[in-house]
Structure formats: C-alpha cells, structure tokens
C-alpha cells in the first residue's frame, strides 16, 4: 500500500469532511447509467473528480470512456436516442436537474476533441468566438483575450504574425493547440479532453502533454486517452473503464505499479485492448 503523507494544510480538510467535498471535488458521479437506444453503454458509474488535477480515463475501444466524458458537459445529448439515469454533480449541482442551463455548464466546462476542429475562420476569430457569443464585444478586451489564450496554449509565438489567416492553414498539432486556446478563451473551470493527441504526431503530442501539465495549475483536466504511457506521464489519477463499467479508479502511480484488479493488470500490461 502507498502511504500518503498528509500535508499540514490538507489536515484541516481531511478532518472537516463536508468541507473537503465542497472544495476539492469538481465532479461527483453517482450511479450514472446511460443507454444508446437499447445499448447499455455506461453502467453504474461512481466517480469523484478532484480539482486542479489531471484525471485520465483509459480503457479499450468501446468501453464508454468517450461517452462518459461527453456526458460531463452533456454533449452526449447531441446524439439522438440517448437516455441517462443517476446523477452527475458539478460543483454540487446535478447537471441533469431540470432547468440546469446546458450552455452555462459548457461555458464552465470546456472541451477539446479527438480531431482538431477549428472553425473555418481566422485564427483570431477562432479564439474570439467564445467570448463574442458570451457578449464580449470590446475590441481591446478581445485582443487581450486572444493573446492571453494563445499564449496559454503555447502557440502564440507560432501564430502571432498570422492571426488573421485561416486556421486551416495550420498543422494538425497547431490546430489542436488552437482549439485548446479557443477553449481557454472563456476561462473555463474544467477542461475535458477526448483523446486530444490521437490524431497528432509525436512531437505535437509532446507539446500538448507539456501544455496539460502547465494547465493543471489553473484548471481541472479530465483526459480520455488510448495511450497508457500518456496517462502514466501526465495524470494524477486514472480510471480504468471496461464494457461501460469503472473497474478501477485510483492514483495513477498505483494503478500502473500495483493494480488491484486482474482485468486492469491485463489491460495495462497489454494482454488485451
């Protein structure tokens, strides 16, 4: 067993149990079930996700990891015939609750997709789109936001001289970092990343991984990945999904060095998946 040393500043939190919940946890999933038509894709998911950490979700194709992450900002509802039961609390409020504004949720919870999907607009307009739809029209403020977000996504130096060129002129890796910048522009609380590097070359992947490390200081990040080395490199906690169930969810170090479940071990040692 790993012995965790409780730092003094965390002691108070551990003792005052209730407080700790409200502070440190962004997402609390309770008995989540999800169906695509008759296909039971997520089964009784219970998962708490911590603030300012990188939480990785791994598992073989079709295990429900992408479905789960898309449920967190209710993007899954764009798929017809989706039914859910159970609760996901984001900052203490059930996101399935009647009257919960899905736009408000997605403003707080940004998302980066598997394939870079910039808008067919200029680099500048891509980043400014989010702030603009949320009512920011002042050109000066927009300029600042664009610069800050592009710097935040570590792409500013590469694009600062071509802000008004079409985003589709960028390389795949640059496009993905632009999408991250677009997501940062509305200063979200959580960033969901759905296999953000699966379409990128190794160097671009490395850049995105470094960026994730940088971003976790300010954001809570949940990342779905096919790549177990990636999960091991960048995440604090890892959840292993299999056939729509969470098999194991614990500290990344532990899951890779000493998994408790046989299936987790089989998967991370490459026996299947």
């Amino acid at each position, binding site marked *: 067993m790993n012995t965790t040393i409780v730092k003094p500043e965390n002691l108070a939190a551990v003792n005052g149990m209730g407080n700790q919940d409200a502070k440190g946890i962004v997402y609390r999933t309770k008995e989540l079930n999800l169906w695509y038509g008759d296909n039971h894709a997520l089964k009784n998911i219970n998962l708490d996700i911590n603030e300012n950490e990188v939480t990785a979700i791994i598992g073989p194709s079709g295990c429900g990891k992408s479905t789960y992450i898309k449920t967190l900002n209710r993007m899954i509802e764009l798929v017809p015939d989706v039914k859910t039961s159970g609760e996901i609390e984001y900052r203490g409020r059930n996101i399935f609750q009647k009257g919960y504004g899905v*736009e408000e949720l997605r403003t707080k919870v940004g998302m980066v997709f598997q394939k870079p999907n910039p808008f067919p607009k200029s680099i500048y307009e891509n980043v400014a789109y989010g702030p603009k739809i949320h009512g920011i029209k002042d050109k000066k403020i927009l300029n600042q936001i664009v610069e800050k977000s592009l710097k935040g996504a570590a792409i500013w130096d590469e694009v600062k001289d071509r802000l008004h060129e079409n985003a589709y002129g960028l390389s795949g890796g640059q496009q993905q970092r632009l*999408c991250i910048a677009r997501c940062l522009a509305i200063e979200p609380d959580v960033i969901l990343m759905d296999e953000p590097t699966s379409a990128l070359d190794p160097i671009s992947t490395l850049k995105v991984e470094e960026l994730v490390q940088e971003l976790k200081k300010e954001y809570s990040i949940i990342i779905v990945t096919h790549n177990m080395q990636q999960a091991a490199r960048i995440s604090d906690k890892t959840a292993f999904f299999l056939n729509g169930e969470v098999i194991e969810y614990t500290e990344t170090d532990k899951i890779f060095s000493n998994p408790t479940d046989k299936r987790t071990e089989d998967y991370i040692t490459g026996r299947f998946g």
Partner: protein
Amino acid sequence: MAIQETSKHVSIKELIEKKKQSKNKYIRSEKIVPFILLLTAIISVLTTIGIVATLLAETFTFFTHVSITEFFTSQKWYPFSETQGSFGILPLISGTLKVALIAAIVAVPIGLASAVFLSEYASDRTRRIVKPILEVLAGIPTIVYGFFALTFVTPILRDIIPALEIFNALSPGIVIGIMITPMIASLSEDAMSSVPKAMREGAYALGATKLEVAMKIVIPAAISGIIASIVLAVSRAIGETMIVAVAGGSTPNLSWDVTSSIQTMTAYIVQVSQGDAGYGTTIYYSIYAVGFTLFIFTLLMNLLAQFISKRFREEY
C-alpha cells in the same frame, strides 16, 4: 497443409494470368469507352455553342433593323405598332426584374429559414419526411402555378389591394417565389448539412446556443452553397415563363408599379412565338434579341454567384 496452401496460391496466380491473356478484349473497351464518353461531352458542348451562335446571328440581324442604342435606351416597347414601332427593351427588363425581385423577397427568407430549421432543429424523421415533399413541390409544372396565381392568388390580393389589376406583377412574383422556395430550402439545407459535425460540436462545447451555432458557424461555413442556391433560384425566376405569361399580362411598361399589368422578356417571346409574326420581320428577329438579353442576364447571375461564393468561402 502447407502444400495445399501453396497450390491454392498458385491457382490464384494462374487465374490472374488467364485473365490477363483474355484482357485484349478489355483493353479494347478501355479505349472505346472513354472515346464514347468524350463524344457525349462534345455533343452537349456543341449544342450550347450552337444555341449561342444562333442567338447571336439572329440578334445581329435584328440590330440591322433596330439600332442598339434604341434597343437599350428607348423606354417604349411597341413592337406591333405599324406606324411607329418602338423596340426599347427597358420595359421588358423592368417587368422581369420586378417579378424576380418579388419572388426573391418571398423565397429567400422563407427558403433560408426552412433550411436552417431542417438542418439544425428538425429531427431526422422530420427531415426525411419534409425534404422529399419540398422536392416534389419543385416538380409541379409551372403552368399549374400559373393558373394558381391567376385564379387563386390574384383574387385574394385584389381583396386586400383594390387597385390591383387582374394581370399584375405582384401575384406572379409571389407565386414564383413560392415555386423557388423549395429550391433554396433544399439546396441550402444540403450546404448546411455538409458542414462537418465536428465544427458544430466545437461551438456547442463553448456554450453556444443552437441559434448561435446556426447563425455564426453553420451559415458562414455554408455560405457559398447558400449563395449558389439563391442565385440559381433567382435565375430560375428570371427565366420563368408560364406563370408570368398566364398571370402577368402583356403590357410592357417601365415603372416600379407592381399592381399594374406587365410583360416580362419571357412572356414577350411566348406572345410572339404564338402569334403570326412572319419569318424575317423585325418582330421575328426581336425575340432573338430579347432571348439574348435574357441569356446575358442569367450568365451575369452565374458569374456573380461564382464571384460571391469565392469571395466569402470559408475554407475547411
């Protein structure tokens, strides 16, 4: 086992070899087919060239009877007047443009709104039902629209606007608008639906509402297709013949008045073709000149469409 497998392998090779030997036949058709395809392509090109050449030749003959300046600047179109026949095409152009403009005013907002609804809001089921219906609407013969305008729309309009003449620009304009609405709706919907889903997701993930996604992502990304659909529909309105011939009247006049009887370029051609204008008369040649003007109009529309869609295209 191993032997069996190799023998199988060899037999496949043999089969391919055999096929190769009998290939001469195929090679021949490989050469003949492209030739036939080329021939059919040439036929359509030649036909077009032929039509334009005929138009041009007859138009030139017309201009030996009537000066170009008179044709394009005179404000009177009295081709049948025996004493002082006047061939100024402006009244016909004004008739055509009035009708096309009314049609566009009706069709563009309705067509675009339905396209946005179908591509962004409607369920798959609704779309599957509504789109074919729209396409059927586009297949109704225009003569049916023509008497629909004359016997249904005009009387209703006359209740609202008492000054409206029986033959007028408004009624056929509205009905042509109704006729081209499905075209705009259907083609624009195609353009919007082909905007990648990933782009919409990107906007939704930023907290955009459906309307914001439609207005600021989908329409801009599909704009070249949308403009193409509008231009195509307006060209159709300009070239529309039956509806205006039935419900528009035959009084060419140069004005912006939509309540009085008009004549469009197409309706004039119908009138002369049906009448007994003798071969070789100025009137006979005038339909070619009018036809040629009409052709220039639609050609300009197409060039405009190409220009606009290139100018506003969002590459992705």
